[in-house]
């Protein structure tokens, strides 16, 4: 809490006292990142599956792996990234002030964030929706039975606004218990200070499997909102946004084409021209257009695998969280994940 206020204040000081950050023209952010030697990636302070620290002290998660891929694309080294834990309340301020180069913090893409907050969303890396988790012994099976409930909610999120709208639409009352982050919500929920905890369904599943007795808890079936999550950067540096966007797209295309972390070296003789462009094994060097090395996307995919592998390792069966691919499957497999062509 002190920390979050400090972050906001220091961001303001950067804006007030700092030198003008953008001189226009070529990607200033990319130059800054290269000069610094590492990427500053804003992630969640602890969202199981998306960004956590494992037993050996290593950052892991779905958002973490995206940043590693981006770092690999720029430096050829997936470890050349520094993760900055940000609460939901300070994330945009930190990004706007240049404390991070990119924000990959399960952040919902909305109109006002895109326009009023002056951010550029790079795409959607996870199609999510807001859900509710309750204890089974509460005897609730639908969100419509939650009239009068006390609800734990993270401050400064879209879920907070959806919650207000949803209860109002359905003529129900509730009492919000605001919390700073996922960990605090979880603690309040377990202590019984609230009847239900609401946030993105993916985070609920991630939280649930890490509870002491996951079977005592239930994620209610209703999804009350669309939450397209994705990485984002500041307005004003289109080249930097392009880099981030196309690293994400490269991971999605890789899954579509069947390029995995382990078989990535075996595509040299393929007749598919897009794969050659993607992996930099062909003649044209189209990645020079954004200031990346020819094999940037090769390195990005090599870092943590394609989109599907990253999903499986962090959110799917391998991770123990067991989230189904659902709409997040590739369009070739019945999902809505679809990348523009790499050409």
């Amino acid at each position: 809490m002190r920390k979050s206020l400090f972050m906001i204040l220091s961001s303001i000081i950067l804006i007030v006292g700092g030198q003008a950050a953008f001189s226009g023209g070529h990607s200033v952010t990319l130059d800054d990142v290269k000069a610094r030697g590492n990427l500053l990636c804003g992630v969640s302070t602890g969202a199981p599956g998306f960004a956590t620290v494992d037993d050996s002290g290593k950052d892991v998660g779905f958002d973490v792996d995206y940043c590693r891929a981006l770092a690999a694309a720029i430096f050829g080294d997936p470890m050349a990234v520094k993760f900055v834990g940000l609460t939901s309340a300070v994330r945009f301020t930190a990004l706007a002030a240049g404390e991070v180069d990119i924000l990959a913090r399960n952040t919902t893409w909305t109109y006002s964030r895109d326009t009023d907050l002056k951010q550029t969303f790079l795409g959607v890396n996870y199609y999510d929706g807001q859900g509710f988790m309750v204890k089974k012994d509460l005897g609730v099976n639908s969100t419509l039975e939650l009239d009068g409930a006390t609800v734990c909610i993270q401050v400064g999120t879209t879920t907070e606004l959806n919650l207000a709208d949803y209860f109002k639409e359905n003529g129900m009352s509730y009492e919000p218990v605001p919390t700073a982050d996922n960990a605090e919500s979880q603690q309040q929920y377990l202590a019984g200070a609230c009847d239900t905890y609401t946030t993105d369904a993916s985070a609920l599943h991630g939280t649930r499997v890490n509870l002491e007795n996951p079977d005592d808890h239930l994620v209610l079936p209703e999804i009350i909102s669309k939450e397209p999550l994705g990485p984002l950067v500041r307005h004003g540096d289109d080249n930097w946004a392009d880099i981030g966007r196309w690293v994400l797209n490269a991971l999605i295309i890789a899954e579509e084409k069947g390029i995995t972390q382990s078989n990535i070296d075996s595509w040299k003789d393929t007749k598919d021209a897009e794969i050659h462009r993607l992996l930099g094994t062909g003649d044209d060097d189209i990645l020079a257009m954004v200031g990346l090395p020819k094999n940037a996307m090769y390195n990005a995919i090599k870092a943590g695998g394609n989109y599907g592998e990253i999903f499986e390792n962090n959110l799917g069966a391998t991770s123990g969280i067991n989230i189904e691919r659902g709409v997040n499957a590739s369009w070739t497999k019945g999902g809505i994940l679809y990348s523009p062509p790499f050409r």
Partner: protein
Amino acid sequence: MKASSPPTDEKFQIGMLLSDTRYRGTSLQVITFIIFVAVFFWLVDNTLKNLALLGKDVSFNFLFLRAGYDINQRLIPYSSDSTHGRAAVVGILNTLLVAFVGCVIATILGLFVGILRLSKNWLVAKLMSAYIEGFRNVPVLLWIVMVFALLTEFTPAPKAFKGADPQATMLFFDSVAITNRGTYFPAPIFNEGAYWVIFIFILSVFAVIFLKRYVNKLKRETGKDFPTFLVSIAILIFPSTILFFALGSPISLEYPYLKGFNFRDGIHLRNSFLALTLALALYTSAFIAEIVRAGIMAISKGQTEAASSLGLRPNKIMNLIILPQALRIIVPPLISNYLNLTKNSSLAIAVGYMDVRGTLGGITLNQTGRELESMLLLMGFYLCVSLLISSVINYYNRSFQIVVR
């Protein structure tokens, strides 16, 4: 005088602004002022430029837009359809509530602990020392989280009150429920005629005060003592009670009851409010206790000895001789502790209490992305409140200072 006054025929030269002691002071002040103004304008200009580069402008219009979020504790009507400005006001009132209640509790507690620490009873004095050192030397944020954890972990959930054989029961004839979401009290309901009863009661209070003054005056003039205690009680109770029943019980109590997930009706003191207020009050009271002790010890021992040689009992000495004099020493540092408590209340988000830092400086800031504007408003608010508190207490202090004639 004549020798030191400057010769009138001396011509003014520009270098004299710095070399001549008559002008140096002023010119240095002017230079400093110019530098200060220049730096200030550079900061403002740079801010606006950088914001423009980010594509942002400085605008306070967001205060008039729909907020879209709910606030649990609101002293004025507010819903998610209200504006961000109103949300800020709700937060401001919540901050002021915590600050006011916290200061009152801290003062009372601090006074007691400070006096008891000087007690001749070894155990009492040591206990109070432990209290002071314990609260004073641990960061207040930890106390807030600690009190909140105690309140939520060791109290039953509303569910425990349910069923034929509930695990928890309400206190005081089913009127007060202590739960892990807060404590529910019966709320007074004012029906028609209620204001007459309140009016008469206030009149009775004034009557008692006048009676006390009159008796004191009589005592000073004639030396006769009238016991007023029973009469005062009678004045306080009978007129308003008789009116209360004559008007057909216009004031009734609304009891909290369990429905669905939570208790409904009654007054709900949330654990976030209780934890924040209690922790701030306990923490600040430790500082106030030390101030009180210092104030009392600063009064010469001769005062106590003189008073006891007049035959006054120890509690009379404290109330009539020591405390009135000690107050003059106590009040100024007390102000800074009140200010500290008010400013420390911005730690509210640690327990999810929606003070102005939580609404304007938290959710509104985040949903609208107006960091600079929100922070400026927030700083302006805390500045105003602090200046207001210190001016009020300074006024009080001036009226109690020893007047040197």
